[in-house]
């Protein structure tokens, strides 16, 4: 213990930790000289998107290592690679001497996921047993697993109220997260613990308890990798922080010598800001136009406010993915009692495979499905009108393959064109876009941005959620959301990557 205490002094004051770390440790502790986790020039692509473009980093035993970055920075992909769920295209990953993961991932590496890794129909102890089977005796495993679960929960979260025999789907989100974190830590060979947004659903005292435990793990020479959007927490618990952007590490900082502001700047990076089209924003921000939607919200400080969109306006919902943007769209689409919304709505989903296309129908039928009721006469379809509409949109958007092609035969970009055209072909006056351009090629995107603007000029209201910040500059106004609340509102040319990023991390005063 003693030697490591000695090097932490200079380590916290010096900017270039890696050097200090290797130097000091080589004098004192030969066993820990090698970094526990070594990532070298790792590249990973999913189809057309390059998720990681040459990541290099080291994590040492006995340190808490923070990873921050905005949407699409590659954090999740990096964690999947480190936990051994995904292989790499090129480069190398070495963790504790192992260079490739076994069937259960890298030995000694455990990850607490943000969601989705507990079986809801199983009890807490059964979930623990499922994931930590190697370290629980097979005979009388019910008792053994229950005791392990209860002991670890007590150790990390002393005031929890979870019984090992509770069924997971009857637990609150916070309780589930506690189980998930405990599950990940129950491994006798644990050397690296990855925590992915562990505190997103935990309450204040549970957060403190978790970080106390993280510090305890650090002092027993474990490595902890912490991914979080909560910069304050990152800075308070981590030794080093890396900032990721566009699939690469842009900078490494000693947590003691950086501020939240420094991290914002590093995340924003050098972005080329295109000027948004001036004409539409001028016309649309004119508040003399009738209001077409109104959604009551709260600001991060808890004050009441609302999202307002005028007729002919393009409204953006920005911020870190999953901070409540889709909930706003959902409230509008379901016409919740508290929202004011125009008569006819159309919705463009983001996940084409799951909720977008009708796979066995052709382009024409996929395109007209939303407009169908208004095209019919007394409930009978009018095929000639439908065909005219299809021809118009296929020509306008240059959908390759034409109207009679099978929808599944089209490229992703062209499929997305059909789905967008479907909404605009209807007579809806408000169009809800749910991050529709993920994984769409640049050409298609530019065409669709133009379409959105021209349709808005014709008097339609567009509410557009996007996880890609640069897309938001095509909006007249953008609301940045944080934890289901509004962190800020940006107008016209103010809608930039930097502004969105800094607003994304706004936290309530006093927390």
């Amino acid at each position, binding site marked *: 213990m003693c030697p490591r205490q000695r090097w932490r002094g200079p380590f916290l004051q010096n900017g270039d930790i890696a050097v200090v770390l290797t130097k000091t440790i080589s004098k004192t502790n030969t066993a820990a000289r090698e970094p526990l986790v070594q990532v070298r020039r790792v590249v990973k692509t999913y189809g057309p998107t390059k998720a990681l473009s040459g990541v290099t980093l080291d994590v040492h035993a006995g340190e808490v290592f923070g990873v921050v970055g905005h949407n699409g920075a590659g954090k999740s992909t990096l964690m999947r690679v480190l936990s051994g769920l995904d292989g790499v295209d090129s480069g190398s990953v070495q963790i504790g001497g192992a260079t490739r993961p076994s069937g259960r991932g890298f030995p000694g590496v455990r990850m607490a996921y943000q969601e989705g890794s507990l*079986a809801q*129909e*199983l009890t807490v102890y059964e*979930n623990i047993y*499922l*994931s930590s089977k190697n370290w629980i005796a097979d005979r009388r*495993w019910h008792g053994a697993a229950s005791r392990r679960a209860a002991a670890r929960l007590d150790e990390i979260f002393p005031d929890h109220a979870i*019984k090992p025999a509770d*069924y997971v789907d*009857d637990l609150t989100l916070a309780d589930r997260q506690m189980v998930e974190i405990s599950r990940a830590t129950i491994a006798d060979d644990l050397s690296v613990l990855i925590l992915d947004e562990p505190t997103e659903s935990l309450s204040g005292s549970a957060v403190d308890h978790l970080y106390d435990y993280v510090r305890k793990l650090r002092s027993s020479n474990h490595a902890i990798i912490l991914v979080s959007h909560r910069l304050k927490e990152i800075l308070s618990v981590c030794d080093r922080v890396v900032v990721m952007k566009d699939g690469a590490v842009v900078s490494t900082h000693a947590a003691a010598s950086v501020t939240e502001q420094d991290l914002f700047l590093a995340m924003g990076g050098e972005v080329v800001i295109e000027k948004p089209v001036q004409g539409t924003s001028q016309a649309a921000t004119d508040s003399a136009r009738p209001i077409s939607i109104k959604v009551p919200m709260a600001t991060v400080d808890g004050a009441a406010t609302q999202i307002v969109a005028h007729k002919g306006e393009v409204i953006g919902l920005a911020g870190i993915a999953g901070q409540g943007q889709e909930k706003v769209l959902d409230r509008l689409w379901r016409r919740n009692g508290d929202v004011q919304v125009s008569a006819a709505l159309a919705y463009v989903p983001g996940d084409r495979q799951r909720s977008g296309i009708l796979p066995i129908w052709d382009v024409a039928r996929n395109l007209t499905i939303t407009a169908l009721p208004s095209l019919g006469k007394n409930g009978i379809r009018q095929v000639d009108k439908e065909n005219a509409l299809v021809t118009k949109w296929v020509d306008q958007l240059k959908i390759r393959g034409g109207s009679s092609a099978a929808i599944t035969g089209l490229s992703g970009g062209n499929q997305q064109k059909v789905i967008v055209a479907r909404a605009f072909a209807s007579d809806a006056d408000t169009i809800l876009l749910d991050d529709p351009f993920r994984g769409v090629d640049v050409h298609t995107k530019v065409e669709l941005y133009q379409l959105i603007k021209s349709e808005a000029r014709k008097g339609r209201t567009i509410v557009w959620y996007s996880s890609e910040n640069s897309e938001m500059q095509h909006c007249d106004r953008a609301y940045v959301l944080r934890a289901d609340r509004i962190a800020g509102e940006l107008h016209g040319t103010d809608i930039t990557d930097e502004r969105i990023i800094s607003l994304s991390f706004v936290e309530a005063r006093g927390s």
Partner: protein
Amino acid sequence: MVSTAILEKFRFNLPKGLARRVLPGFLTLIAMVMILLICGAMQPRIWSQNGLTLIMSPIVALAIASMAQMVMMSIGDIDLGIGFFVGMITTIVATLLRETPILGVLALAGSVLAYALLGALVQLRSVPSLIATLGASFVWLGMGLFVLPVPGGSAPDWLFAYAFWQPPLSIPAPLVTMVVATALTWFVTRRTALGVRFRSLGSNPVALMRSGGSLVVTRMLAYGTVGLLGVLAGITLTAEIGGGDVNAVPGYTLTTVAAVILGGGMFTGGRAVAWGTLAGAVTLGLLTVLLTLLSLSSNLQPAVQGFIVIGVLAGRLVVERMTR
């Protein structure tokens, strides 16, 4: 005051979510007892070892087939071929197993293996289980007709001996068989690591995958278990009808689903309710007896069953809405 305090305490000690899972099966058990009491009131002679054996022996095969369906539904799949599978097994038992036991045992083992392969097909080719098992049901039918084109054959002697077995303490033999089969299924699905994997496959395959389990192997083992229980159901059915007939019980396919639902199972998977399913199967079986005693046409039975299942599902939905 006192009673609410006790209730509060009771609630506090009970693991969260347990009541919601046990209650449906418990209610079915009450329904079963009530039907039994009504039957007994109308015909007191059923209160004897012989009487109970008589009304329960047709239910044994249904109960075991329901266990098979329960395992299938616990991994989130539905078996639309179990009726013809059980029928096919009776033809094998009544011919091959009687005449050339070694060949018979091999044929039965082959049937279980075929089920496991069906599971691999469902997992690897992502064929919906409904389609795969419906397709397989025609294979079972064809095989059964091939083995025994017309109903006939004869149960092996040891099976006849079982059919006339009278356990001590005037316990009805069918009850012993059903309880043993249910206890085994309960043990495998609830007390073993394999059962945890089955249920996690039905509840959240991602969790199973992240824990290092193989989806293919787990699904194959689950289907193999279903096949094994199907074979047991076929053997007990042969004992009941005394021979083989592939067309003996095509209705089992949907009745078993009804039994699992009555017992507290879910179409979405993840729940294994062996004891509830037993109560469900016996309740559905006793309905026939009740309708006969009421001198109503047994042709009404499917309709009555249907109403009960719809009623149970609707009632459960209402209860869930109220408790959440």
